[in-house]
């Protein structure tokens, strides 16, 4: 255990200078800091002494809290990144945008028609899109943002859902858009509307009804009255006979994903 603890020290506590071999300089809101070369922007800011209140969330690229805008040395181009997923570069000139001012309109999804019309109703600014593609360039998830806004414009819910699915709502697109669209809100509504065009699969409806009608009550009564040994025995039997988990041919389990039935 101690060996594991030792090996992970840099990640679990602050970075120790003695372990660092290479350094770079990054500029955090204009101030230069010498930081270890091989870390993320987020780790670099912490190394430099910032303790995040805003600007850190999941630290794994899922929540969009650490949206960062930056330039690299000698390049006029504006770039975007997630601080937790991006390595520092020497000469990086950065700032964080932890919040995008964008109120979401309230709607009752059950009252809205499951087609494209609510999109223009709640977000008429979508029609201001000039197809400049700045949103796509700003997206740290490499999504084709303009394309999904264009799909929203013509009411193609399926295309919006497909193209916007991996959106983590970091807000960089909305901050950069000259037409002042709030793309991720449009996409969220579109996805929900699209979801409502897809019926709940029958097998789910059937099972819900079965449970509500008490189909499993007797079985559960038995289970809840069993001793630990009895449960263990039943578990062994279940896993061995029906699910195939203890079977030698476990490739059956993983190959078709369906197991035996």
């Amino acid at each position, binding site marked *: 255990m101690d060996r594991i603890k030792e*090996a992970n020290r840099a990640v679990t506590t602050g970075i120790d200078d003695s372990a660092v071999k290479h350094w770079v300089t990054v500029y955090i809101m204009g101030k230069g800091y010498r930081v270890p070369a091989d870390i993320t922007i987020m780790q670099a800011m912490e190394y430099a002494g910032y303790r995040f209140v805003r600007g850190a969330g999941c630290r794994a690229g899922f929540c969009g809290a650490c949206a960062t805008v930056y330039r690299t040395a000698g390049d006029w181009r504006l770039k975007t990144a997630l601080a937790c997923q991006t390595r520092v570069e020497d000469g990086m000139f950065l700032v964080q945008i932890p919040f995008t001012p964008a109120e979401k309109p309230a709607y009752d999804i059950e009252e809205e028609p499951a087609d494209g019309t609510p999109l223009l109703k709640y977000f008429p600014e979508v029609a201001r899109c000039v197809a400049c593609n700045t949103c796509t360039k700003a997206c740290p998830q490499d999504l084709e943002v303009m394309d999904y806004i264009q799909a929203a414009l013509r009411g193609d819910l399926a295309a919006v859902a497909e193209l916007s699915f991996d959106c983590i709502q970091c807000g960089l697109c909305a901050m950069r858009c000259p037409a002042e669209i709030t793309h991720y809100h449009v996409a969220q509504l579109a996805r929900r509307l699209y979801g409502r065009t897809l019926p709940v699969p029958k097998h789910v409806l059937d099972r819900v009804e079965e449970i509500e009608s008490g189909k499993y009550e007797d079985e559960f009564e038995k289970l809840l009255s069993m001793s630990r040994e009895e449960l263990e025995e039943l578990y062994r039997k279940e896993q061995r006979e029906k699910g195939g988990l203890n079977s030698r041919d476990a490739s059956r389990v993983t190959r078709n994903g369906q197991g035996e039935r």
Partner: protein
Amino acid sequence: MAEELKLVRGYPEYMRKSIERVEASRPRRLEEGPPPGMSLEEREELLKKYHPDYAPGGKRPLVAGPNKGEVAPNEVADLLEAYPLLEPGELELKVDFDVDILILGGGLAGTMAAIWAHEQGVPPDRILLATKLRHGDSNSIMAQGGTQAADKPYDSPTIHFLDAMGGGHFTNKPDVLKALVEDAPFIVKWLTELGCLFDRDENGEFVEEWGGGTSRPRMHAARDYTGMEELRVIRDEFRSRGFGLLEFYPAVELLTDPKGRVAGAVLWNMETDEYKVVRAKAVVLATGGFGRLHIRGFPTTNHYGATADGLVLAYRAGALLRDLDTVQYHPTGAAYPQQIVGLLITEKVRGLGAQVVNRDGEAFVFPLEPRDVEAAAIIRECYDRENCLVTPTGLRGVWLDSPMIEEIHGEGTIERRLPAMFRMYQRFGIDMRRDPILVFPTLHYQNGGVETDPWGRTNVEGLFVAGEVTGGVHGKNRLMGNSTLDCLVFGRRAGIAAAEYVKGKKAPQTVTLDHLKGFVEELRAAGVPEERRSPMLLPDYRGKRVLARMIDLL
């Protein structure tokens, strides 16, 4: 450090030899399948020897509070046996917000509680959700692999029950577990009706995958963004209903009435240092887990705010905890590159067929054992058999043979079913369709917590709990896909139960911090040093050099 080593497609050259061996053995391994699953006895033996929970020195008995004498990890005990951040005597407790239900925590569980309390008839302006970071910042949003629900004909809630029991070493609370598995299909139906986009096949039915320890495939996923999809849909619904919301306002202490019933909380604005007093007829605690405590020095999959705050607050108010002696280490956390060490590599990768392979290219364990067993097996391979890779920073790891997924399910599967992971590795120059990925166990889940009944009620009146902060439903080890389910099912139940509880009740007459008095005395009597304070609120990763030179002048 990477500049010294020559990288070939993202990996240091010296790792390439091992990767070649993995490639060489792949056709045979695809044909033969992995080693078979272990028997219950074999699992127990492995755990005893290699699982961090069993290694000595990591835990100690608590010296104060409702669970005095019971064992908890040191890092958790340090927080449970600690003095409040506030000076109870010096704080003016004039009420700023008066609500029926105060919800602490903005993940899946907290959001569900709000919506369902509203469904039960509590007006939205009488419900306040306070969260430490943003609404949505939680472990929930990072959940990748799926949500279990026994909704296919070949499956049933009783089988789901058994699977979870087995995974939990038969220590799960049966009535609570029954609620979990019985509500699951309804939750899936309800989410779908809200517009949640679970993966479907060409026939429109849900694609359901295997998980570790399950005897049927029943994992509902939305690519590998399952938690994010579920949470953003219910958060969108939350935002349309007009609830009170306070962000960056963690609770730093619960409030009680003179009878010891929970009556609200003291919230602290992390940006302005101002505190606010909330009086509530009921409090729903949905504050999540404790990964940022880095138990036993492990890296973690958890979000920035997972610091066990809720556990501490509930404990001080007299809530009974359970199963604190177990901690879930996810068997596959990223081990390379350094920038993503500890991050979750979802079990779905194994569910889709990737085998766990050592340095020599051999699959050494059945890939879908329950998580504790799987983690122990990897630790054994790395630190006992030493048949592992060592990264440039000294971490050890084994391979997860992701290219197998493309072989089994067809080209394009990884991009389609695991886009988040594919994207993450691409950012660091690694193509997981072509090369295996390096993994090692990482601190992942709080199996235990505040004990609850099937409706989220605790032994403290007025206190409801839901989600990762609770204990009992998963026993001593949680199965994949049961955590998001836990949050959804018990978030809903706690919301309903809290709504029922507050009906016809008057607001608490007085709010006090008196429940701290007895607890503090217990700590002093046990000799707990005064400097120890909790809740932690945020972990500290600032560079040591900077910390050594820091002075607080404002």
